[in-house]
């Protein structure tokens, strides 16, 4: 992840943990790696407001 950040003109990164007091830095980094990997490999979908997704009655 750090290599990708350094190679892609990133100037800042922010994390939003679900529970900072219960999480470890290792767990945060693990999920961050998962997120960035998904992005790089196009394994994620475009965000649309949940209420606009047409899934509601």
């Amino acid at each position: 992840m750090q290599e990708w950040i350094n190679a892609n003109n990133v100037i800042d990164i922010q994390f939003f943990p679900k529970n900072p007091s219960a999480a470890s830095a290792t767990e945060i980094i693990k999920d961050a790696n998962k997120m960035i990997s998904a992005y790089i490999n196009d394994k994620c979908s475009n965000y649309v407001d949940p209420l606009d997704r047409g899934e509601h009655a």
Partner: protein
Amino acid sequence: MPNGQNLAISLALDMRAKFCMELTEIQPLAVNTTKLINFIAKETETKIQIKTVSGLQTLRGTLIRKADEAIILVGDKSINTECWERFTVIKEVSHLFLDKPEWFNTDTVKKANGLVSREIENSHFAGEIEVILAAIELLIPYEFSTRMAHMSNVEEMTSLTIAEFFKVPLLYMEYRMKKLDIPIIRP
């Protein structure tokens, strides 16, 4: 309230005033986050991509910022309810109009350690409270306070039900109602 937090709220109020509160069609009290993000992108002259990622356990969301581009990665239902998903994207996008360049940092290990220790070191933690306050201002507008009071006191809705109407996390709805001095009489 510290000056930084007051400034964050003020900036969020300015953004909200310009946005003119586009609401979702499905729920008439829920701010349309897709439209709000598109608006903030134009206001900050930033190209914003927001992607949904599955299989997460610890992180609700992540912001990756470049000079004139931002990538927001938000966890899907594996970690976020719809309310948390909406709040997370608005919280992350708020960094774009709140954060000072001197706070920028790309050291992921230092950032993660700073969050866990909750120590403000070189601003690794600084700004998090401010962006949360900004997101609350954007998603639970003061203009709705009369409506919220009516829902709580006359329609006898619980704060959880009211949070669902606004499609925001209960945690922040309760914070908002306390700040607006609306009694929360039912759990």
